[in-house]
């Protein structure tokens, strides 16, 4: 469980960076939101998968 707590640091940073970039993009070009949103959510899901694998392993081990 302690290891899982450490493992969430990386995905947490990644998700933060992804949404920061997304907010920047929408702030610069509001009309591009429709095209950016799926990409942002996809990146969020891919980054979150690492944290998810961490919690799965925490329960398996």
């Amino acid at each position, binding site marked *: 469980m302690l290891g899982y707590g450490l493992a969430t640091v990386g995905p947490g940073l990644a998700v933060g960076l992804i949404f920061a970039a997304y907010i920047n993009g929408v702030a610069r070009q509001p009309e591009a939101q429709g095209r950016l949103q799926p990409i942002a*959510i*996809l990146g969020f*899901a891919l980054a979150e998968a690492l944290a*998810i694998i961490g919690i799965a392993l925490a329960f398996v081990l």
Partner: protein
Amino acid sequence: MYLGVTKPMIQLVVAAGVVFAFLYYASRKRAMVPGKLQYVGEAGYGFVRNSLGRDIIGSRDFTPFIPYLVTLFFFLLVNNVMAAIPFIQFPTFGRAGTAYALALLSWVVYNAVGIKRHGFFGYFKHQTVPAGIKGPVLLLLVPLEFFSNILVRPVTLALRLFANMFAGHLLLILFALGGEYLLLHGEGFTKLAGPVAFLMFGLISLLELLVQVLQAYVFVLLTSMYISGAVAEEH
């Protein structure tokens, strides 16, 4: 091996029935001026068809996959939101086997489509050799690409769904039972932490509602991305 009818089994059947009933009654009339139900059905169908199917797979060959994508999306949505309905309160995909089955289905679909499109060896070449790369670096890239595109994809697809549901469910249980324990069995000032835990329980419930919808969306999004990768002519 446990033989018998469990709660997730019943929920799967009920969810399939709900999805069938919803889509059937929403599409039965086909009125020019849609009523409430038909409007909701058309909105959901149009969302999946346009933003998940057409924009990702491409307008040329996305039509055969619309039934699969729409059904998958609504089925996931109903199953996930069951975690927020009182007295059911269990996400079906909080059991790993259900998520494995869905991921296996998506895996079979996108691989079969790719093999049908490119031929057996052509498909593997298409999936493992990135475009425009030549020379000895292929020795390193081909196994890696095969590993990530064929083997890891279904595993992550299933685990993402399952672990999101499972972790949310655990979190809710933790806050509910922890709040109950602090409030009823705490001593002195620890009683004050009970209501805070219950407040957190409410907030986390709302967060979980968001996560449930998002996970259904993400699952279908990734499925359509894999299909688009399989049917694409070149990267």
